[in-house]
């Protein structure tokens, strides 16, 4: 089985978010970048397939050369090869179109992406990619098993979960549950050394089609200070929730 894992290069989850150039750009100053958490679950699941059932794992990212450290980390975790599409990812549709080219050229059976990235939170790339390719697609996927050409998956639904079956080729948008957090792989020294000799191809983009653009960013208005209520006066809290906040 040929697996492609789409990797988004995102600010670390604890990053303070600031903007530059008149709030038109994300300020990367002092920000540490990591593999998007949802993609990390997918990558670990792909490595699991490789070890248990036999598969090749390619990782791909659309981004500038600064994202190569993130791809190298994915190689150190166990991916076999990496592809970087050398472009600034302008919007979800652009990323999906570039990824679709990679999938068409590589003939992948299973494409794993994160349900959403923690920077732009668009949640659109996997669904757009599958639709552009005409592949089957499962969103919010929290488990996937593959047997030959058949796949069984569990996806989240509001208030529960649903088991579905389908066939390859398949795109899944995964999240925590594909593997547990304690099972996430951390690169070891051997992996880091091996990653240095693994192939990292750089492809030029094939188009520049975007449907949306980020015009400006805003930070939420500063919050007023918390109103503290004495633990001995909880009637006051109930009163505030009813009369002031009007939520009960």
């Amino acid at each position, binding site marked *: 089985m040929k697996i492609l894992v789409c990797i988004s290069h995102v*600010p670390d*989850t604890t990053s303070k978010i600031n903007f530059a150039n008149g709030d038109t750009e*994300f300020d990367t100053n002092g920000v540490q970048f990591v593999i998007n*958490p*949802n993609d990390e679950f997918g990558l670990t699941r792909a490595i699991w397939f490789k070890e248990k059932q036999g598969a090749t794992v390619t990782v791909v990212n659309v981004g500038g050369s600064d994202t190569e450290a993130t791809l190298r980390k994915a190689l150190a975790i166990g991916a076999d090869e990496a592809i970087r599409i050398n472009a600034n990812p302008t919007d*979800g*549709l652009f990323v*999906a179109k570039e990824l679709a080219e990679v999938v068409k050229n590589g003939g992948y059976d299973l494409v794993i992406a994160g349900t959403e990235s*923690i920077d*732009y*939170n*668009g*949640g*659109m790339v996997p*669904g*757009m990619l599958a*639709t552009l390719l005409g592949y*089957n*697609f*499962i*969103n*919010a996927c929290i488990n996937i098993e593959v047997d030959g050409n058949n796949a*069984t998956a569990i996806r989240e*639904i*509001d*208030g*529960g*979960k*649903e*088991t*579905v*079956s*389908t066939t390859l080729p398949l795109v899944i948008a995964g*999240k*925590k*549950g594909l593997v547990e*957090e*304690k099972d996430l792989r951390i690169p070891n020294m051997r992996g880091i050394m091996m990653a240095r000799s693994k192939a990292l191809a750089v492809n030029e983009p094939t188009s520049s089609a975007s*449907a*949306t*653009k*980020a*015009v*400006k*960013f*805003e930070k*939420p208005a500063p*919050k007023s200070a*918390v*109103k*503290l*209520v004495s*633990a001995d006066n*909880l009637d006051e*809290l*109930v009163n505030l*929730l009813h009369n002031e*906040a009007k*939520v*009960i």
Partner: protein
Amino acid sequence: MSILIYAESAEGKFKKVALELASYAKNVADAMGTTVTAVTVNATDVSDLAKYGVSKVLKVSNDKLANFNAKAYADVIKQAAEKEGTKLVVLSSTTDSLYLAPIVAVNLNAGYASNVVALPVSTSPFQVKRNAFSNKAFNITEISTDVKVIGLAKNSFGLAEGAVSLTEEDFAPALNDADFNIKTENVEKVTGKVTIADAEIVVSAGRGLKGPENWGMIEELASVLGAATACSKPVSDIGWRPHSEHVGQTGKPVAANLYIAVGISGAIQHIAGINASKVKVVINNDPEAPFFKVADYGVVGDAFEVVPKLIEKLKAFKANNA
């Protein structure tokens, strides 16, 4: 060219998000000088939509669509949009709608903006304000395509009644076998309990509760408020509570009207997951807990003393306001 919404229903009845979506779309339609059309799948009584400003409903009734199927449902929405000559399709942010929207967008050659939190900043050019960076910032996004798809973040607009007269029309879009390539084998739904996805109020607890045996009072507090229960990441990692209750950046997002956090210190990833909630109450014995910085109301005190007392006060309040 009316605005098209997909009004989600379950067992024939509209979900509250469908009515919120109608309210939102009516306001956008007024600004654009047009009307709102809804497409529904196996909904029986559609009159509720008229109360919130929908003037036309395309009713799809098809047993093959009894289970949600993203490709087929997306086909329904696409054909409804084409039939109506719609330039703007608005979906909600339920798990199903988040699944549908990117498929609909590609099929309609439309740009898509998700997590939209307010009425459009401008309709020409078409710009919307959306949540980004896990609710730590907003992004104004411009959609440049002729047809546009947007997803409204849950609880971001609320309900706004504005009755109009309603036309109903049966609609039978063409579906093909490939639409059903994903087969539903089994559905497991939590029943008899408020789930995080549907909850207006969420009561959440963290490691400060010291053990899973102490969750009884959290469930009781939730029960008094008609709330869902949730937990912090460490709690689900240790296995005190199921993963489905974990809220935060890698867990479930919560956009409730009221979020009550008990014994949760407030890690940045947790805050990111609940920041879209309107009112936040924090109960913690550590006055330095970072959660107090983002809370609206706080009680510094021992959860084991505060929560039982709060339950009694709320019961008394409910009895007086029944």
